[in-house]
């Protein structure tokens, strides 16, 4: 997995509540058997009109935000389906960090498996960054995961919280499966115990 240490980039504002994973990547794109290539269909139904043309009003189609790498958005982002295609589409587009007051659980955890940093902040801090993000190409925001700090375009600094283990994995680009396989003896112990206690399983 790609490491996440520091990120400096344009932050795009998407002030909509409850953006679900169907909105992030609609089901017709779930037919792929690959992880890549979904970026062009990120937010498909908001981003393109029915006949496939770009909707010029949608934030990621505006010149200043076409290369945004940070998304500032409404609460409960990523609710709905568990599809990991949502973080894959974000990552493929180039979004490495999403900032919101809250996230749906499954989406939140899926981000960490794909080198995306989801940051939860108080609504007041999100509102401030949302204002900053409205400044187009000047909406440059820096994120330092190690220090757990966000620096806005005016230099103002916001601290954020993150689970230490998840931070460690993201900073070092660690593969969960590899880490778990190191605990193989414990898994084997558990399985022998289960065989005795719940032989029907």
């Amino acid at each position, binding site marked *: 997995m790609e490491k996440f240490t520091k990120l400096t980039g344009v932050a795009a504002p998407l*002030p909509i509540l409850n953006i679900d994973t*169907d909105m992030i990547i609609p089901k017709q794109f779930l037919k*792929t058997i690959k992880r890549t290539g979904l970026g062009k269909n990120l937010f498909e139904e908001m981003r393109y009109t029915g006949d496939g043309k770009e909707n010029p009003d949608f934030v990621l189609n505006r010149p200043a935000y076409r290369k945004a790498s940070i998304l500032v958005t409404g609460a409960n982002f990523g609710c709905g389906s568990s599809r*990991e295609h949502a973080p894959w589409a974000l990552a493929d587009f180039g979004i490495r960090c999403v900032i919101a007051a809250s996230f749906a659980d499954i989406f939140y955890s899926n981000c960490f498996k794909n080198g995306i940093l989801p940051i939860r902040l108080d609504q007041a801090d999100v509102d401030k960054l949302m204002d900053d993000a409205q400044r187009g190409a000047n909406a440059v925001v820096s994120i330092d995961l190690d220090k757990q700090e966000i620096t806005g375009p005016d230099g103002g600094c916001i601290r954020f919280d993150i689970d230490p283990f998840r931070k460690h994995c993201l900073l070092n680009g660690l593969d*969960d499966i590899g880490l778990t396989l190191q605990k193989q003896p414990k898994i084997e112990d558990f399985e022998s115990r289960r065989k005795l206690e719940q032989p029907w399983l």
Partner: protein
Amino acid sequence: MAKARTLFDKIWDAHLVDVQEDGTCLLYIDRHLIHEVTSPQAFEGLRTTGRPVRHPGSTLLVADHNVPTTDRSKGIENEESRIQVQALEDNARHFGLEYLAMDDIRQGIVHIVGPEQGFTLPGTTIVCGDSHTSTHGAFGALAFGIGTSEVEHVLATQTLVQRPAKNMLVRVDGALPEGVTAKDLVLAIIGRLGTAGGTGYVIEYAGEAIRKLSVEGRMTVCNMTIEAGARAGLIAPDEATFDYVRGRPKAPKGAAWEAALAYWRTLKTDDGAHFDAEVVIDAAGLVPMVTWGTSPEDVLPITAVVPDPAAIQDPAKRAAVERSLAYMGLVPGTPLEQVKVDTVFIGSCTNGRIEDLRAAAKVLEGRKVVADVRVLVVPGSGLVKEQAEQEGLDKIFLAAGAEWREPGCSMCLAMNADKLAEGERSASTSNRNFEGRQGRGGRTHLVSPTMAAAAAVTGHLTDVRKLV
């Protein structure tokens, strides 16, 4: 004396393989369900790293999202869908896993197949790359949806890296009134909690109204728990649960059954156990529900009118309601009963079981679907379909003017050919009314099976209590 524990705590503790210093847990997974949409990349990961599946016997594969609900003898027409289903089949063969093929009578929606086969058992941990895995919580199993990377993790290690959830109790006192179903109950609960109200929690449902629900009704409630943001719903198993499980193909038999039963009877929340949040609902006050917006929390009694955004103080919420109403093509103040529908969908893992079909058939019997309204009845599995046909339900649907289809997810998410056209409006027994969920520009109203049948015979959203 041991500390009083919730049902969630008990199942959690029983599955801990390891707890790190920082509190991160490694949780053992007993049962892994797999469908074609969220698994190809996970299997690809295993192939690339050369890792085997740790516990093939704990894994069950079935295709449901992409399968056609019309004649299957010629296979799947859409190329991408065909490739995805083929990939599932190839992966099953390559890794030596059990796969229920499209022409197997046991094929169906993964969350209907698991319980039907007795793969879903009380006290187990169950995962699937699908958010409605919460369904299986109806059996007192800790069941939740995971992403594809986690699917790969479970395949390779039979475990998951997790942090414990918080406990929420939703207690439903009293009895549901006549004409009010499990679906109405769960919609009301989501309306009360909001779509993020359960985030970070596992919800245990208890109380008289829950106990009185059939096991299938309990599945409907647990199924939609994710729509309130909680990854899992739980209902303590009881005699009704055991009766449902007994004799299923994969359920324990003989002495193993007796031993399992003795353990399963211990699976309940201890008196005095701590919940981080508690919600009490009075069942007697509930009426049939319907959604008006584009989030399952946008729900009201069928007797209500379309809400007016002007009355909402919070600007973000007001904007969300305005956006929903514009998408749904609804005018504030319109009585919900006057909203006309074009399509009725009866099916999905929320309401595609035999009791749902019976309930819908009861309303449709001796009545006719309104001209121009398309009605799709899609059983949740081949076995549900067979049972319905034995009971003659298919004849009732067909005589009323509905279509009787092959099992699958169908118009719940419209990944196959069953979808709404732009601007079309449905009354649907599925679980999500998101923008575009049933087809780009499609407008979804979530209802119970009886409410869906009522809309089919009147052509508009209808209080089913007037028809029975």
